[in-house]
């Protein structure tokens, strides 16, 4: 990855731009980007730190917006987010699982903040109410999509042990066994 001359950007945002380029190249079928991406995804500490920083930036903004000047609420919300992230990520998560767990927690916070704000609003015009309702709908879609992605990654990453006994195939995945001929 080449260094950019732009000195105004923070290192984190520069790294995320480079990661974006790498991901885009891989998605567009650029085979040269795949080894670098594979190396990054296999457990790069720098990537984990960068993604963690990005998630933290978003979280600080969301919590600041939700809690306002109420410091005890802010503290409680920060702790709640931490517990939620840990619960979703589970024990020994990969970088990707941790990232997706953080995404779910952030989407959960954004959705609930939007719902609470809307419930507390008074004297809204129809246009304003529709605007907030569509914001809630967007947040809800984003939340469900984040859950779906983590579920897909976990489902496909589960090691499947395939045993052929005579003509019967037994699939064992995550402790559950299913039989098919």
């Amino acid at each position: 990855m080449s260094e950019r001359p732009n000195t105004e950007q923070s290192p984190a945002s520069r790294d995320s731009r480079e990661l974006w380029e790498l991901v885009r190249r891989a998605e567009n079928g650029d085979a040269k980007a795949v080894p670098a991406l594979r190396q990054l995804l296999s457990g790069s500490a720098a990537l984990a730190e960068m993604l963690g920083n990005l998630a933290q930036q978003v979280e600080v903004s969301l919590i600041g917006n939700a809690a306002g000047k109420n410091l005890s609420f802010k503290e409680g919300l920060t702790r709640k987010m931490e517990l939620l992230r840990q619960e979703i990520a589970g024990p020994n998560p990969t970088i990707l699982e941790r990232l997706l767990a953080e995404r779910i927690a952030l989407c959960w916070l954004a959705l609930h903040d939007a719902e609470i704000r809307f419930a507390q609003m008074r004297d809204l015009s129809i246009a304003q109410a529709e605007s907030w309702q569509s914001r809630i709908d967007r947040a809800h879609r984003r939340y469900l999509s984040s859950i779906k992605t983590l579920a897909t990654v976990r489902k496909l990453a589960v090691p499947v042990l395939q045993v052929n006994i005579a003509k019967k195939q037994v699939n064992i995945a995550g402790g559950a066994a299913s039989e098919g001929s």
Partner: protein
Amino acid sequence: MGWDKGRYYTRSKKVNGRVVREYIGAGEAGQLVARIDENERELKKAKRDAEHARRVKADALDASLDDFCKLAESLAHAALGVTGFHQHKGEWRKQRVGKAKH
């Protein structure tokens, strides 16, 4: 809303699509009602501005969360692609070994 001939305080409103001017009064009474109307207008404007500021802030937060979500989604797709999966009609499938060689 305004002063007709500089003497009568008036309000304009639409009735059945036509603008109708309502004469409120002159002198101190007119000035009092004018001040009340002015306060109401300022209050409405402050509410509108607050709502606009709230929406701008929420939009900015949504945009930063969207960016993060897009990055996470792209990274997940790239990771699945790197580990030999491809998307077929929205569903992720394992790439066939023979097909991958061609």
